[in-house]
């Protein structure tokens, strides 16, 4: 009753609008993400209070070493991926040359490497038994394979190859959205190319880099296959696995919880770092997207470097192809296989339900991606644009499912949805089709959220104001203007979510049903019986599929294909 005297007109920017928008988002997050994940923390203290934590931090050796190793690997991964990703973005977005668009579509394929077979391909390339070290051994006639990656170095190689797209995509979206006149101003003040990058471009890319760093850091922290394959067992994820095998579930949960807490701490630090400055161009009007570079780098170095980088980055894919086309047993100590065959493809394609896993994965991944886009974009908007209490919590809420290992997420989801509850509309979700898309949604929401948030940091809020001023309601202005301008970032996020959805294995294997066999499980079944050839053939199908998606989304993103190349061209001609 007391509220009736308040002004009746409360639009999209009244004081409680943020809460109105945020409430359903919080509900979704709570129901589908946070509350299920809390199970891990609950379990870690359920038996004996904080004893597990005490044990974790006081016990000699393993726990602490694992934590340190994991942190070291994560930090190094962030650095390496950052360097590779930003460099690739620089080469491909700042210069134009023949075949650039093709390379752009190729360059994301490593992100789409099927798990298991993908990891194996790295071994076949760079480890002791790999093509490269063996070839070098042959070349130099040495006793042992040369330059073989092993242990942490091997893990870092895999991480760099598979995660640099986070940086590449974020940086290229940000580079495209940046006000070019700011860079010109720096040149005009006498700064050379390197200094401009150091003092203007990179700092202006901060939102994108922060977003990518978060993703890479957390992915590395929760990465399992790479440490496994390269035998680094003193990592958090390996310890979680070992503890689960030992049957010590609370301790496993303690490890998982510490993993989550470390990630959250990193998230908070990054948020603080990013929040110190503004990255929004204050320029009047819209500056011309044109800057002309007469530098030889543009003409020769860029294409050459890009092609080289692409070859290196695509090598794992080529390896998979090699495996897919090699006859069983024809490749043991040889550097490359000695006999080739179509057999593997014939085998999988003649199987009655050969395409089912592919279609399943596509469908579920698309569904999840759609959900991620809707929820992720809204949360990004809320966290970046609206002022309300608890913004950091919202941010943490989204990221928490990314900070935990996939297995843990899946187990939490099973526990939460094995019986009906309000969020599942009273239905038990496990054993149904919906649990997998839900898992993908929960797990890959952070990708869309981060990418959208980074691109939003570069969009002038006064554009939305202008639209509102012209009479557009908030949803309309939001969709027409803000989302439209965020689109490059949103597409990046959606692509990542989709690609990861198609490749997801660790969670899928715990919740799939016979009618929703995802492609990763199909590949795993082949790997399990060591039919590497057919597994690789499946993997190739997946790679091709992802490539096609990338190619078309690249066209979509650049508005019919020409705008992007036009943009790069304007930087060179």
């Amino acid at each position, binding site marked *: 009753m007391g509220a009736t005297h308040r002004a009746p007109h409360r639009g999209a920017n009244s004081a409680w609008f943020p809460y109105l928008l945020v409430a359903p988002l919080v509900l979704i997050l709570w129901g589908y993400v946070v509350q299920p994940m809390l199970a891990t923390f609950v379990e870690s203290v359920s038996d004996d209070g904080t004893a597990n934590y005490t044990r974790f931090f006081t016990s000699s050796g393993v726990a602490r070493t694992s934590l340190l190793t994991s942190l070291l690997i994560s930090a190094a991964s962030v650095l390496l991926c950052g360097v590779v990703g930003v460099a690739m973005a620089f080469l491909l977005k700042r210069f134009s040359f023949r075949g650039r668009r093709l390379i752009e579509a190729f360059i994301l394929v490593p992100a789409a490497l099927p798990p298991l077979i993908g990891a194996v391909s790295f071994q076949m390339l760079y480890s002791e038994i790999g093509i490269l070290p063996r070839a070098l051994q042959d070349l130099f006639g040495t006793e042992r394979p040369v330059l073989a990656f092993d242990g942490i170095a091997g893990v870092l190689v895999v991480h760099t190859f598979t995660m640099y797209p986070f940086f590449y995509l974020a940086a290229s979206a940000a580079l495209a959205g940046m006000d070019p006149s700011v860079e010109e101003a720096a040149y005009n003040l006498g700064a050379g190319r390197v200094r401009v990058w150091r003092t203007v471009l990179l700092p202006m890319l901060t939102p994108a880099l922060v977003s990518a760093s978060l993703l890479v850091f957390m992915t590395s922290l929760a990465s399992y296959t790479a440490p*496994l394959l390269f035998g680094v067992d003193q990592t958090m994820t390996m310890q979680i696995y070992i503890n689960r095998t030992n049957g010590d579930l609370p301790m496993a949960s303690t490890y998982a919880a510490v993993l989550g807490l470390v990630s959250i701490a990193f998230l908070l630090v990054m948020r603080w770092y990013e929040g110190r400055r503004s990255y929004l161009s204050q320029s009047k009007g819209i500056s011309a997207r044109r800057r002309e570079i007469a530098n030889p780098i543009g003409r020769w170095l860029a294409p050459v470097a890009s092609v080289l980088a692409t070859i290196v980055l695509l090598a794992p894919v080529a390896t998979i192809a090699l495996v897919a086309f090699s006859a069983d047993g024809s490749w*043991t100590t040889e550097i490359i296989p000695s006999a080739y065959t179509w057999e593997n493809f014939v085998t999988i394609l003649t199987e009655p339900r050969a395409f089912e896993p592919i279609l399943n994965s596509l469908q579920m991944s698309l569904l999840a991606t759609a959900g991620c886009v809707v929820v992720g974009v809204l949360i990004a908007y809320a966290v970046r644009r609206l002022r309300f209490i608890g913004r950091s919590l919202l941010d943490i809420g989204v990221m928490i499912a990314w900070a935990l290992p996939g297995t843990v997420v899946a187990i939490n989801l099973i*526990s939460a949805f094995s019986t009906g509850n309000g969020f599942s509309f009273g239905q038990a979700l496990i054993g149904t089709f919906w649990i997998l898309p839900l898992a993908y949604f929960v797990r890959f929401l952070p990708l869309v959220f981060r990418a959208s948030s980074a691109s939003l940091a570069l969009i002038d809020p006064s554009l939305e104001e202008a639209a509102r001023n012209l009479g557009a309601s908030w949803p309309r202005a939001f969709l027409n203007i803000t989302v439209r301008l965020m689109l490059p970032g949103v597409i990046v996020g959606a692509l990542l979510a989709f690609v990861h959805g198609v490749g997801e294995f660790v969670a899928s*294997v715990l919740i799939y049903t016979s009618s929703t066999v995802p492609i990763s499980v199909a590949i795993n079944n082949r790997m399990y*019986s*060591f039919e590497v050839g057919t597994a690789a053939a499946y993997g190739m199908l997946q790679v091709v599929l992802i490539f096609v998606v990338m190619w078309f989304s690249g066209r979509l993103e650049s508005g019919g294909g020409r705008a992007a190349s036009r943009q790069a061209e304007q930087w060179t001609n």
Partner: protein
Amino acid sequence: GDSDETETPAGGAAPAEKIVVYSARDKKVTDYVVEQFVAKHPEYKDKVEVLNMGAQEVLERTRAEKANPQGSVWWGGTQQGLSSGADEDLLEAWQPTFAAQMDARYKDAQGRWFGEILLPEVIMYNNKAIPADQAPKDWDELIDPKWKDKVIIRDVPASGTMRSIYASMIQRLSPDGSNPQPGYDWLKKLDANTVEYAANPADLYLKMSREQGVLSAWNLQDILLQSEQSNMPFGFVMPASGAPVLVDGVAVIKGGNSAGARTFLEFIFDGTLRANLAKDYFQIPAVAISEQPEWLANLNLKPMDVDWDVIAKNETDWINHWNAEIKNKG
């Protein structure tokens, strides 16, 4: 238009419920068995769903679904895995017909799980790199310094099989498990010879075939499958002092379609089926079969005398110790 199909299930029986099988077996095996099963029980046509995954994942999944079990059959799992499933009250106790003929060592006393096949753990070697006559003949030869950097081991803590082998190696030198030290020392020497720990079976095969290492300890069935079916250069030696024999078993999951599950499991122990599996997939049934295939007859399986109770008590400690103190330190 075959009218038969529309009339199944015949004979007025209640319509068959779906059987969901969580299997850690090879997909080829499960496909074959399900085909045979449906042929015999047509009412289950399209009603048997097999979800293939790792043994550890079967446990995780069953455990997580405890509140509302989705699976009916647990098919394939180590003794340890099945035991913890039983202890966590995930499995249903019953008395199948085949249990009577089964050695008590191979089944749960309360009937919650039953061994299906026996997995002797033997010495594996790359027969392209090592002539058969030069391969080690017994476990102790593996720690001979001449094999330095020739051994590849599937990483231990995360593998049920490897844990059992390593625990057996310790228990072999300390029957009551009270003094694991000699075992540790032995394993340390093995570690010194180990060039690399492989992440999973596929990784192991890969590294063995590509001669990063040429010796390993592995289960017989997989060695035979790889060399016969995938053309891999693997041979095996039955160790002179005996091979630890692991039991790989099956169980009915509590709360699932237990009628269907029982039918299915009874079928798995069908004599001809087991004979066929033994012939084509190199399985050693836990319940002896009448007509042994040639390879099995010639095998000369010599089980090592392993006390699984001692191992069950100590395994976690021993493996943790190995992981923390021995691995990569020899």
